[in-house]
């Protein structure tokens, strides 16, 4: 599958591969058709986390490095952030081709433009995964991060992405290290068309993490534990949808992760939640909340593809993807969309 090398100017022209596990078929469509394929009482759940300016240039012992914030801050003061350290270089190089950064030790200070952070923890998983404590908090820290930070970039794109390009149309609090990109085509006219159709909308806030670090140990462990918030109105909306025969369709794999981790198996119900999730969804996982999935075009070998297999059988997905590749669909973060319909 060829990657999209730049976000589409016209999101409504995003193609949609509709995969129907019940009929074991797929068909070509455009993303606007989501509003016709879904039915009244269906519930579309989006991830409203805005994307952080997670990439920060800095220096340690005079070595230039890049810091990528891996998630939202933990702790009460908002100063402590998980981060992955990259060596010198730029977004034009693939993460796995970047030179290694110097090994950071606890107590060392990363100097940035008008901001600094102390290394207060080094992960046993990899020395490149660290906990940072910034030298300020509150409005001073956020203003500085938005002044010097850039969105995480992708080597296959033809240019550097500005911050606004990596925000979903409905983005709220900045918590995601990288864009929850499945929601990118859900522009306001499409959201209104869904409402007019009788499809309900709800949201979770899930701190989607880094997609790739170039460090084999970290990459094998992705996704790392992610902060996930499922609020009471969303729990109620899921209950109402199910009671009326509606289906719950997640927008993006992060929403699947959020909703399925908030499922209380002993109680047999969804609960409001706000915490870290370590859930991994793949083949054999039986979703208890989510019935279908609107997402990008994910190929075998990607962790997102593993997750798709919880919703449709692998041979069907592989057939559909072969078709998509030959039909010119575009993949990766800014590519086309797929809708895996509920199996029943």
């Amino acid at each position, binding site marked *: 599958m060829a990657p999209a090398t730049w976000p589409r100017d016209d999101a409504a022209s995003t193609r949609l591969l509709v995969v129907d596990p019940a009929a074991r078929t797929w068909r070509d469509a455009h993303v606007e058709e989501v509003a016709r394929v879904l039915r009244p009482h269906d519930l579309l759940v989006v991830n409203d986390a805005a994307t952080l300016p997670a990439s920060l240039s800095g220096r340690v012992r005079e070595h230039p490095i890049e810091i990528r914030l891996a998630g939202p801050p933990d702790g009460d003061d908002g100063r402590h952030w998980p981060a992955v350290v990259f060596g010198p270089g730029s977004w034009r190089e693939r993460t796995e081709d970047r030179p290694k950064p110097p090994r950071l030790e606890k107590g060392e200070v990363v100097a940035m433009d008008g901001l600094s952070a102390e290394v207060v923890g080094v992960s046993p998983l990899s020395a490149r995964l660290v906990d940072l404590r910034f030298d300020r908090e509150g409005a001073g820290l956020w203003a500085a991060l938005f002044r010097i930070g850039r969105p995480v970039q992708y080597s296959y794109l033809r240019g550097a992405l500005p911050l606004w390009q990596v925000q979903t149309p409905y983005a709220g609090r*900045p918590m995601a290290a990288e864009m929850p990109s499945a929601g990118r085509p859900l522009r306001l006219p499409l959201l209104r068309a869904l409402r007019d159709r009788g499809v309900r909308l709800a*949201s979770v806030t899930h701190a989607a993490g880094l997609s790739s670090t170039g460090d084999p140990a970290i990459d094998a462990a992705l996704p790392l534990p992610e902060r996930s918030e499922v609020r009471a109105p969303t729990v109620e909306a899921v209950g109402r949808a199910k009671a009326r025969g509606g289906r719950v369709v997640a927008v993006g794999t992060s929403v699947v992760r959020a909703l399925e981790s908030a499922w209380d198996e002993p109680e047999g119900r969804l609960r409001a939640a706000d915490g870290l999730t370590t859930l991994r969804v793949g083949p054999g996982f039986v979703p208890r909340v989510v019935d279908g999935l609107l997402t990008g075009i994910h190929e075998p070998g990607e962790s997102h593809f593993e997750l798709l297999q919880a919703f449709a059988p692998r041979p069907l997905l592989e057939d559909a993807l072969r078709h998509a590749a030959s039909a010119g669909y575009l993949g990766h973060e800014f590519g086309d969309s797929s809708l895996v319909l509920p199996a029943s």
Partner: protein
Amino acid sequence: MNLAGRSALVTGGSRGLGRALGAELARRGVRVVLTARGESALDEAVAAIRAEGGQAQGLVADQGEKEAVHPLVGAAAALVGPVDLLVLNASTLGPLPLRELSETECEDFARVLEVNLLGPFRLAKAVLGSMVLRGQGVVLAISSDAAVSGYPGWGAYGVAKAGLDHLVRTWAAELAGTGVVFLSVDPGEMDTEMHAQAMPEADRSALARPAAVAERIADLVGSADRLPSGTRLDPAGLSRVA
């Protein structure tokens, strides 16, 4: 909209009506983010609200700069959550003393439109999606008598404010039924630094106090759901509603 516990972003929040409105909203339990270009005046406004026990944050930004919009909205949402109430209050008069259109440089006209019209457009655009998703939100534009009447010397400012009023009307039409309410308010003449710059000869004692107007506007926002979206209120209308 029940104000307590809401989040608001107020532009032009360091002086005049914006500062007074930020303080009044904070008194009513709103988590307020004030934004303005000048850091020291902004710090003072924030400190004054906190001294009263209110929740306030300040973010320095120039809303006439396109690149400033998403960082501002992002930092505001990080601090107080997604914006429930956006107050589009900041504006510039352009070069002083005010001059008639034939004497207005094209670049100065463009800058006034950039700050007073395009800035609010971009800011609202950046917060609207979240409001639509949540099915609630208020966008309040501060307008002016100059948006309706053609006063000599107020051309660029008046054109921008007329445009702002029309943004409000158009958005109200486009987003009808989404739960997001758009309002514009002409607050009338107030005793502010901006008024003194525009009309240095005015009798300041005859002008309304920003704090009194801010109370009426906060009342208005508190009952925004009862007004048709797209409503424009003049000072008399504001007194009747609020």
